[in-house]
């Protein structure tokens, strides 16, 4: 017990290796070991979505993934959404549309919303609300978040 396990994985395009205990969550390792603290712990129970990351392109609650399961996986966190010079249209629209207040849920929303738009570039309001219902926000009442995702979808159309 307590024996550390060696894990090789890819995070935000970079190959990384880490040691972990079997009981440690992916969220714990991403935040404390890899010091990518963008993903947040809101409930550690899969109910708030603040810890959402992409695992092989699919959104998951990283609090409900064992770090050892990341062996050989492709992980993406909020830190990977912007490129060197520019914010992603979703990030721009979240800022211009004031879609965050305290900001603690924002990384999770951005990761989920990016996955949504990548797979479904023109979602309806209802689809946006449904696909984001695994992410809780207590500040905004969701209005400005939904509008920001709609605005980003338009903006991404224009650049294409």
């Amino acid at each position, binding site marked *: 017990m307590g024996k550390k396990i060696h894990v090789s994985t890819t995070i935000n395009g970079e190959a990384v290796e880490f040691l972990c205990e079997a009981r440690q969550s992916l969220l714990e390792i991403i935040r404390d070991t890899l010091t990518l603290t963008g993903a947040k712990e809101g409930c550690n129970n899969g109910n708030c979505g*603040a810890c959402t990351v992409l695992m092989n392109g699919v959104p998951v609650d990283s609090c409900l993934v064992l770090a050892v399961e990341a062996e050989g996986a492709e992980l993406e966190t*909020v830190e990977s959404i912007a490129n060197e010079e520019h914010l992603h249209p979703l990030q721009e629209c979240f*800022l211009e549309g004031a879609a965050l207040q305290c900001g603690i849920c924002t*990384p999770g929303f951005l990761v989920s919303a990016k996955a949504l738009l990548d797979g479904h570039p023109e979602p309806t309001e209802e689809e946006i609300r449904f696909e984001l219902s695994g992410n809780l926000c207590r500040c905004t*009442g969701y209005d400005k978040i939904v*509008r920001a995702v709609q605005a980003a979808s*338009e903006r991404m159309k224009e650049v294409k």
Partner: protein
Amino acid sequence: MSENFNHAQIIKDPGDNYKILGTRPVRHDGVDKVTGRAIYGNDVQLQGLVEGAILRSPEAHARILSIDTSEAEAHPGVLAVTTSADFPDLGDKIANLGEGPVNLAHLAANCLAKDKVLYKGHAVAAVAAQNVHIAREALDLIKVEYEPLPIVTDVLEAMKDGAPLLHEGLLTNLVPGGEKAEAPSNISDHHHFKRGDTEAAFEAAHIVVEREFTTQTVHQGYIEPHVATAHWNQDGQLTVWASTQGSFSAREQTSEVLQIPISKVKVIPCEIGGGFGGKIPIYLEPVAAVLSRKCGRPVKIQMTRDGVFEGTGPTPASFMRIKLGVDEAGKMTVGEAWLAYDTGAFPGGVIGPGVMCVFSCYDIEHAHIDGYDVCVNKPWTKAYRAPGSTHVAYAVESVVDELAEKLEMDPIDLRLLNAAREGTKRVDGPVYPRIGLIETLEAAKNHDHYKSPLEGPNRGRGVAAGFWFNIGLKSAATAHVNADGTVTLLEGSTDIGGTRTSISMQLAETLGIAAEDINPKVADTDSVGYTDITGGSRVTFATGLAAVEVGKDIISQMKERAAKLWECEAADVEFSDGIFSQGDNSISFKELCAKLSRTGGLITARASVDPQGFTNGFGVHICDLEVDVETGKVQILRYTALQDAGKAIHPSYVEGQLQGGSVQGIGWALNEEYLFDEKGHMLNPTMLDYRMPTALDVPMIDTVIIEVPNPSHPFGVRGVGETPIVPPPGAIANAVKSAIGIRMTELPMSPPRVHSAITEDGNGAS
């Protein structure tokens, strides 16, 4: 592209010709918060940092006979264990901690229980270990011997003679701070206001409606759990990294609980993941501090989510009886209110604002109000957005709606007829300065939402009004003018919703420069003057005022520099729209900044303000909904929030406050509640079963900002943060009534409650 963001309707004040105020710049801390770089409380990483965990009571009421921590201390990887035995004895000392009086013994005993546990989840001991897993393993090794005591969780039960007493010596304050009752009880405070002759007025009234209402315990529900990191240095200097609504308040509370000088405590405010009033009190700071002193390492404690629900301060459950009388014309002549709020485990709840808010929207000649704060075996209740006001607004607005029905009057017309206005005397005494309730009601009446028909079966529309104060309190700010024409602004108000920017915009407006040229920093308690909490809808108002004063200081200092350049008297230098001028000379703010170092050095300015008195904010909400009569489930179809917001500095964040508060109110109205079993254990301490609204549960929230200027602020700013949570339960209850003809007198209006009401009513589908 801002048209995509579909902004609110803004009804401006005629005198409004601002350049910066009313625009929508991107918040200064925005990029850090969308890239994941912003440092929140749990993101703090320090050399040698270790993690802590809290042991919580499995009993809702018990005497602690003994605590044996020896096994936990011996557990490999454990660095320190603490209990209340490590806290100094505080006697019965009351301290005024910025946001009102606090009994320090209670504050400390809530951080770590002393001789008794008063609620399930009450913190009993804490462990620091190499990692949180080891710390939690060690919690299981702490042996606590409890002697269980009878419990009481219902506010009315707790008021009865013979109810189990939480505090054997508690004597009711009959006058706050004054005369006390002879016999001990669970009632900590009794507030009482009387005006005129209510008995006679009810006799004379044309219609009288009296109803009883109950509401359940609800939580602020911020997504970030409480977290604190403390490092107690060998030299006795304590540094705390906190997620708090007030770094100075956290410093005072921590130093008082630990009985160390304020000068020995430095609080560094981290970004804060929501508060809504719940992050004013401290829970973890002194515990992490003591653990750090014991193990010589920085200690971080983050609460678990069930720890947040069971161990921090939600807002009270309540029982309310409201009686209102009107004359033939619908004029409210008389009102009576009997209010009982549970304060949870310790005295000092929110009944005070409850009694002040209950009739605050209306001009009522004869009134009689009784309010009680009552201790029960539940977490110590704390402020939650307009604390105490949402309860009474739900009750009063329901009764007002019923009066409108009986009078066959439009509900907004009835409210207009009776609305408080400048000069109206509140039942508790104060007379209103200029307020905007009338304007807000009129805007609601003229709104497309209210005018458009609502069709379909089981659909209904409801309206309700709501009130909250804006407090003033103390704020300070310091500014450094840079040679490139920008200004660095240090302020002490932790930024929960974009206040860095709303404060910077007020300085920018004063200096006639762009908001982007201000570089705001939320400073720690060693680096900026005393600033009270972020709360009470005060920051944009009071800290904004400090920023304006700083701006004036900068301008007068720069006038002297301009005078030097032009060899004239500073008094002859004019300043407007960012240009200094005298005769034919003129120079822009930026140009003059470039010359500062050669005219006596760069400029620093500071201001410390303590604006006296609060102003008021009024909101009116319109709600359309449909009831699924087969299941009792309520679906919100359309929602509009209108508010007298004063000058909206950054309209997007004002809209955001209206929308966020509305949705919290919708959650409170429909599904949120603490469920307890007979042992006083909370059954639903998760975000799965404590049902806060998801994105799929609510529609877009339409907003209207009515800019009735606040006479006590140079830009007419009013606080807007709290009022929006007040009207929703009343508006929704009134809409349910109009949809299915049933008046719901209990919150939340959850599907089983609504369905059983339908069944009892006989219109049910079953």
